[in-house]
């Protein structure tokens, strides 16, 4: 596990030149492939010493702090095939890895098909990070204190991955292995996120909770999706807990509790109680373990009720 020490300077005006020196990155080579195949070949050629660079929102901070010192950056920003958002009735919504948080937030297509993503993006970090950070980078960084993964998992989303030996597809859920660790190989690139069309009578809600400033990373973020049977009982339930463990995690026992039943406030409450025990939050500046479990409990209840309400309208 990598422990990130984020140094926030409260008195920027007193930085000495020596302190500034510490924040300068080590130098590196910078390559700009034009295709995914070329990028994967370059990554393979450089072994583990090259890193993929997209928006840089995450990577440059780690490099300035000396936590990562890649010898080479492979900038994939100029690869056209990684851009764009499109919808297909069979496949669903495809979001290119280079789509920025802000593009997702303001896309009319996303607003029509998966408005939950636009709502969530409005609260991600700040306008500058949303302009720079990409969906692909957000997932590939393996950063646990983030939002999108929970929603993607709740929607049974998949990621498409390209490597020197071709393409593979995996559930977003399987992408995350540990803190800042994903199942992407060193020479692979996450190229797309695909969100399948949802069954009829589906509803989803995502709630993030920040314990300090609204622009802080979340203390917890919970996505609940329910797809109802014709008799309004739950056919499929997804309860995904984020920021309360090394990776986003599905609260499977709580999901089982909901499945086959009609959602009532009491049932949602019980699901929250169970889900709060299905995560592994750590005590930190955003709250104690106990506090975060209490937050998860409440967020699951609220999100389940909201998702249910939306499902009844669809």
């Amino acid at each position: 596990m990598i422990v990130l020490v984020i140094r926030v300077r409260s008195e920027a005006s007193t930085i000495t030149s020596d302190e500034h020196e510490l924040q300068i990155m080590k130098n590196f080579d910078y390559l700009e492939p034009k295709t995914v195949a070329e990028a994967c070949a370059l990554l393979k050629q450089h072994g583990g010493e090259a890193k993929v660079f997209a928006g840089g929102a995450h990577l440059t901070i780690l490099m300035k702090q000396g936590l990562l010192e890649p010898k080479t950056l492979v900038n994939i920003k100029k690869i056209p095939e990684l851009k764009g958002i499109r919808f297909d009735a069979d496949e669903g919504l495809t979001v290119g890895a280079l789509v920025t948080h802000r593009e997702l937030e303001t896309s009319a297509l996303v607003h029509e098909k998966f408005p939950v993503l636009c709502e969530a993006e409005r609260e991600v970090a700040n306008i500058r990070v949303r302009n720079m950070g990409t969906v692909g980078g957000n997932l590939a960084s393996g950063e646990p204190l983030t939002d999108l993964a929970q929603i993607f998992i709740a929607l049974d989303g998949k990621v498409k991955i390209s490597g020197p030996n071709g393409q593979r597809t995996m559930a977003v859920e399987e992408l995350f292995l540990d803190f800042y660790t994903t199942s992407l190989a060193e020479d692979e690139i996450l190229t797309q996120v695909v969100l399948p069309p949802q069954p009829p009578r589906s509803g989803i809600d995502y709630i993030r909770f920040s314990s300090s400033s609204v622009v802080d990373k979340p203390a917890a973020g919970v996505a609940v999706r329910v797809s109802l049977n014709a008799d309004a009982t739950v056919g499929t339930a997804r309860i995904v807990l984020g920021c309360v463990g090394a990776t986003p995690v599905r609260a499977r026992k709580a999901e089982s509790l909901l499945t086959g039943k009609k959602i009532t406030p009491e049932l949602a409450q019980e699901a929250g109680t169970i889900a709060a025990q299905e995560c592994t939050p750590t005590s930190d500046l955003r709250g104690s373990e106990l506090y975060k479990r209490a937050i998860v409990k409440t967020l699951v209840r609220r999100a389940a009720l909201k998702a249910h309400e939306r499902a009844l309208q669809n």
Partner: protein
Amino acid sequence: MKKLISLIINGNERSVEVEARTTLLDLVREQFGLTGAKLGCDIQVCGACTLLVDDKPVSACSMLALDADGCAIETVEGLSSKDKLHPLQEAFMEFGALQCGYCTSGFILTAKALLAECPQPTETQIRDYLAGNFCRCGCYQEIVQAVRNLASGVRSKE
């Protein structure tokens, strides 16, 4: 490794050789002498280093200069023309929306991007858009007033 990049800074085309590790903030401050944008938190949280890249606010502290190759960069120095301040600068003065001034360049550029995207923002929209810029002197009320007043002024002229 040094690389030649070309960018447009405040309307002027510039070509410059930069090391790969040079940030956009270092480039504009150290090489172009445009020191309106400041280094603050260095982790994209505070907004003191905000610059507009192709009209969008970004944290210049964490953007590689190489990544800005071919882009149009706008700094606070580009807003005024000779003796005439930009209306946002006038509004910030009128409402006393600054004390020490460290955050001001970031706030004004972010507000400029907001008004370009949305010429008549509601107060909530102003607060949401500016939420990622910090003012440690605590001039938030005055900053929101300045932007709101300017936006409604634009409306009355139309």
